[in-house]
């Protein structure tokens, strides 16, 4: 993590997985051997070989440190404490941030893992506290665990400063776990409060009078892991920060922002969008880095006609095994909770013979905090030799630096791929990152075009704080906290009109005139309680294990509840299989019992989209953007056998449907285009499905968003069906529509840029299908044969020819889609 923390050699050598690597040299040899076995040939940059199993090996050379002297403005006591800890100078970026903060600017600094990020904000903050003891700072971390993590280090620094005559510097975490009797002290005494956006939202802002001391003297707001605030969470945070700014104004303070972010395309823009203030960006990093080898693995093709490759999970298991066997500490990132559990099961099994399957652990959101802390500790101590995780460990949770990061599947974005790769690597020694591609089109595109990944800029983080669903809730909270004035503005939305509608609902009351009037909260409720920042709805399901008594073993958010916890679903926690016996939908509980079986389940859902309003379309009405109503329901499930992935059964389900309004891009294939296709109705339908499948993949690549951020639905005159289900109507498709919608109520801003990129989307989709080597469809283009039908590929291409032609020829007028991304 931080540069100023001593680097520990890897954990206890008693790995048991063994040949035990003792010390750096043994470890270097182990890594070398494993890599040579994995990717025979020179271990340095080599030409890409897209058709091989190893498509790329890149060597990221070690980087020398760049230093800067301690700034003159640095308090001598702080300087002395740093020197006592062995820090005699700063990295250049730390000094640069210090300078900007000193001159009153809001700063965002991009720093990779382990580059001394924390000093970037701790230095200016502690310096200000030393100079002016009334100074207060608020640190926000995306999770409670990260705040706890930072606490230890900051507390130590504050302690040393106290000994050095810096007075008592109060540093406290404030979250849901803070005991009631400690809260009062923290509110008045803490110089630095470490918290998270959720606590700020529901525990601090609504009680701001009790925090008067903090708000009156608040000079710095630190947002760590800024890149985590994208999508729904970021859109919520933008609104929480608007509320924070109002409260600060009330107490006469106007704090400065210091933000740190992993490398993304638009850190400054993101910071500015969230905080609504101008920022300077410190991009040049002065921290040294060890050498890293980055390897791309494409599982070998096992059936050329069907375009079927060896399972990427099996391949990831093999790759991870190579490293684990040699005593190296490995983190494996999987793309979903299910994949995490499956890989954990596989790897535990592989190392069962070593007698110590507990050296391999799974890790994901939904595990209870104690279990997570235990695993993190195990990783730092070196007792856990391998961990399989979802993106939950991508953020800066302190798990020490590991030797190897294996990614089972392309993480979906360039930014998070680098972030995950950064989990392996120490300053001094060599590390490795391996990406194993799945057969998904995006993965195949990336693994076969390594330069796309290695040379491209990482993604934009998108937020939409003006999403009405999100914004309205925060306007309520704001009115509760401080009366809204009639002159108040709130993003780009007419907040006065919002308040007017809230008044209709009896939630606020306006008094006074237009000039100096105010809106007061007139409800007995506490509005923050009803809003969760992590989702648009705050509901969740808990998983109750009834094997022995009744224990809550996990939880899951409301939206994924039905697909993960439907009756008879196999729910997996760290490789243990549980079957859902009953889903209490209204009580939001799933009752499970441990079972022993050789399959897992995959839910089948059904989605229907209705257009509510068309905001824009191209001249011919092929590409469209507008507001839609989405109804989805889990209608059944498949049983899939472990290892072989064969379908061994299925079941039907009758679960309540979920509904939302959101924004969507959609494609309307004109009736005459469909009619002109010289193919049978079935083949035409296959073509539409294949086209939709490929388009969705390309769309998420172009938008650089998570696959799950986009929903896909295809319909024909109102009869909806999801392309990802086996459900198909008997009727053909005369005038199909393909919807790619924002998978969040109200939309987070994906569909509009998609509409803007319509041409690019069609052209890239065409390239993908055309360039694929399979005969008649495979998972990497239009979907696997058997899923799509023999003519899918041909028909999809013909459709694209028509569409590209049609929209290119006729696109005129003001509503024309511009071929650029309106970020």
């Amino acid at each position: 993590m931080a540069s100023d923390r001593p680097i520990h050699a890897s954990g206890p050598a008693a790995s048991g997985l063994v040949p035990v690597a003792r010390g750096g040299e043994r470890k270097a040899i182990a890594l070398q051997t494993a890599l040579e076995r994995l990717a025979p040939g020179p271990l340095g940059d080599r030409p890409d070989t897209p058709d091989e199993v190893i498509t790329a090996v890149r060597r990221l050379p070690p980087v020398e440190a760049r230093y800067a002297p301690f700034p003159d403005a640095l308090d001598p006591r702080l300087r002395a404490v740093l020197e006592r800890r062995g820090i005699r100078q700063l990295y250049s970026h730390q000094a640069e941030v210090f300078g900007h903060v000193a001159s009153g600017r809001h700063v965002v600094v991009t720093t990779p893992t382990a580059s001394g990020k924390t000093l970037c904000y701790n230095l200016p903050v502690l310096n200000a506290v030393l100079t002016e003891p009334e100074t207060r700072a608020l640190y926000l971390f995306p999770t409670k665990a990260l705040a706890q993590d930072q606490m230890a280090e900051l507390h130590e620094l504050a302690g040393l400063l106290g000994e050095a005559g810096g007075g008592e510097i109060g540093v406290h975490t404030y979250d849901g776990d803070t005991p009631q009797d400690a809260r009062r002290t923290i509110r008045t005494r803490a110089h630095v409060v470490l918290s998270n956006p959720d606590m700020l939202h529901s525990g601090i802002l609504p009680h701001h009078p009790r925090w008067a001391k903090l708000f009156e003297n608040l000079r710095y707001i630190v947002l760590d892991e800024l890149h985590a605030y994208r999508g729904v969470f970021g859109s919520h945070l933008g609104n929480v920060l608007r509320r924070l700014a109002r409260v600060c104004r009330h107490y006469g303070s106007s704090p400065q922002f210091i933000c740190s972010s992993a490398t993304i395309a638009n850190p400054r823009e993101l910071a500015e969008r969230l905080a609504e203030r101008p920022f300077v960006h410190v991009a040049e990093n002065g921290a040294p880095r060890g050498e890293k080898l980055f390897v791309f693995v494409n599982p070998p093709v096992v059936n050329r006609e069907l375009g079927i490759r060896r399972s990427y999970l099996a391949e990831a298991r093999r790759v991870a095994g190579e490293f684990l066997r040699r005593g190296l500490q490995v983190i494996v990132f999987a793309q979903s909770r299910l994949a995490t559990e499956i890989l954990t099961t596989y790897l535990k099994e592989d190392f069962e013979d070593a007698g110590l399957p507990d050296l391999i652990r799974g890790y994901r959101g939904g595990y209870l905090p104690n279990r997570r802390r235990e695993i993190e500790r195990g990783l730092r101590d070196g007792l856990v030799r391998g961990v399989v995780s979802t993106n939950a460990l991508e953020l800066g949770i302190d798990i020490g630096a590991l030797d190897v990061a294996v990614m089972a599947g392309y993480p979906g974005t360039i930014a998070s791929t680098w972030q995950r790769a950064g989990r392996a690597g120490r300053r001094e020694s060599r590390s490795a990152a391996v990406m194993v591609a799945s057969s998904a089109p995006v993965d195949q595109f990336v693994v076969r075009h390594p330069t796309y990944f290695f040379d491209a800029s990482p993604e934009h983080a998108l937020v939409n704080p003006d999403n009405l669903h999100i914004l309205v809730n925060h306007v309520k909270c704001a009115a509760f906290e401080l009366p809204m004035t009639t002159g108040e503005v709130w993003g780009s939305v007419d907040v006065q009109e919002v308040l007017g509608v809230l008044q209709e609902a009896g939630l606020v009351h306006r008094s006074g005139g237009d000039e100096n009037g105010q809106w007061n909260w007139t409800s007995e409720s506490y509005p923050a309680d009803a809003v969760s920042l992590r989702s648009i709805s705050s509901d969740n399901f808990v998983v109750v294990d009834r094997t022995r008594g009744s224990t809550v073993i996990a939880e899951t958010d409301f939206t994924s509840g039905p697909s993960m916890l439907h009756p008879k679903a196999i729910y997996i926690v760290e490789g243990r299989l549980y079957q859902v016996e009953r889903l209490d939908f209204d009580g939001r509980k799933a009752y499970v019992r441990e079972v022993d079986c050789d399959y897992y389940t995959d839910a089948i859902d059904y989605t229907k989209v209705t257009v509510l309003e068309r905001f824009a379309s191209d001249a011919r009405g092929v590409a469209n953007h507008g507001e839609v109503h989405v109804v989805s329901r889990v209608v059944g499930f498949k049983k899939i056998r472990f290892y072989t992935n064969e379908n061994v059964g299925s079941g039907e389900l009758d679960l309540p449907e979920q509904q939302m309004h959101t924004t969507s891009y959609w494609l309307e294939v004109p009736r005459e285009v469909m009619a002109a296709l010289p193919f049978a109705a079935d083949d035409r339908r296959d073509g539409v499905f294949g086209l939709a499948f490929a388009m969705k993949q390309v769309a998420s690549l172009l938008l650089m968003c998570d696959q799950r951020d986009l929903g896909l639905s295809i319909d024909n005159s109102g009869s909806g069906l999801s392309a990802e289900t086996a459900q198909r109507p008997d009727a053909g498709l005369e005038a199909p529509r393909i919807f790619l919608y924002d998978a969040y109520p109200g939309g987070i801003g994906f569909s509009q840029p998609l509409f803007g990129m319509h041409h690019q989307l069609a052209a890239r989709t065409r390239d993908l299908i055309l360039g694929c080597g399979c005969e008649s469809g495979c998972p990497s283009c239009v979907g696997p044969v058997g899923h799509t039908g023999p003519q899918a590929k041909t028909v999809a291409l013909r459709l694209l020819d028509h569409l590209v032609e049609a929209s290119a020829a006729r696109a005129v007028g003001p509503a024309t889609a511009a071929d650029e991304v309106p970020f």
Partner: protein
Amino acid sequence: MARDLGDRLRQVLGTVPRLAPETRAPEPRACPAGPGGASPEAAAALGGRLVEREDGAVIVIERRYPSAARYGRSRIGDLVDALLGGSDALATLARVWPASAGARGDALCFVDLETTGLAGGAGTQAFLVGCAVADADGITVRQFLLPGFEHERALLAELDAWAPVPHALVTYNGRSFDLPLLETRYLFHRRACPFAERPHLDMLHAARRLWRSRPAIAGPPLDDDSCRLTVLERHLAGVARVGDVPGFEIPSRFFQFVRDGRPEPLAAVVEHNRLDLVSLALVTARAIGLVQRGPAATANARECLGLGKIFARAGAAENAEACFAHAADLAGRVGREPQVRGEALKWLAWTRRRAGRLAEAAEAWRAILDTPGCPRALRREAREALAIHHEHRSRDLESARAFVLDVLADDDEARRADAEHRLRRIERKLQRRVPGGLMAALDESS
């Protein structure tokens, strides 16, 4: 082209189903406008006057309850007499009570708030602050009513200007609700709260000890109505309110007043607050009377037991013991309330043990075992206490053994291990004693 923002918002909020403009329900019809909150007319309609300050206005309502007036079966004059002469009793009732505070009874200020909600936080306001002060001629209630949200500063300033410095406060649940809320309002406006740091008696706790109807053995029930002021005033003085406004309706009546400026629906809220204040004075006076006159004044065993607990908590062990003994006696004799009797005896035993009168404590424990219908948990506790007593104090090992065996006969897993351990030890001692006699006993005591 884009749908109207208002419509989309209504849909997001789920307030009004999306309808075409012509079919949309008409706006809720405005009630005939009242005089407006901050008007002399509204103030007059509520029996008060409008005080205008530079930062807003506040309605101040004053009402006197003269000594000669009656409140249920009680005479206001009697309440006042009790309050004025109650300073020592107040020290017994309150947890912290500086000797100087309330040295004269007229320095007591009863406080009760009506608020816009129970949730707390910056958005919960006190729209009515009621204060009652007793003097030789009666009780004066002074209420400060918020005529509109924008006037809060004025209300707080007016309250500040009025609140005379030496007053000690009496509230009902004010320690956790009313006072923190009021402090938050002052903090919100960044003023000092005039009630901070005052001596404060929260009568809820004493009232619970004295009058909670359910026995406390099972722990305090979460939602216990028996100590609500409206219940207590009926029970203690036969007061029956007519047309009282239910608590849950109070915030919405204020919101309605703010919206339409019509004061009438608030009249009942103002009256409710006033009666709560007089009842609080009544309850306090009654408690003072009990403390002053001791067990003989109590109406029943339960009240007497509660009074004993109040004395015990205040460190008045002698008074406490007298109450517990009397309560046990009453409960056994009159009401045949074995639970109350058992509890009174337990407290009696504790009090005596603390005073070092072990034999008498054991007598009380034994009395529990002699009370038919006493709860099982109490009987077990009595047996354990007696086993300890006989093993260590009276050194009657045979009796100790008998009590442990009784405990073991009681099928309670949690206590079993302790009891078995004790039994083994007693039996070891018994074995040693048989041959060793006095010598062994001396050995053990060394």
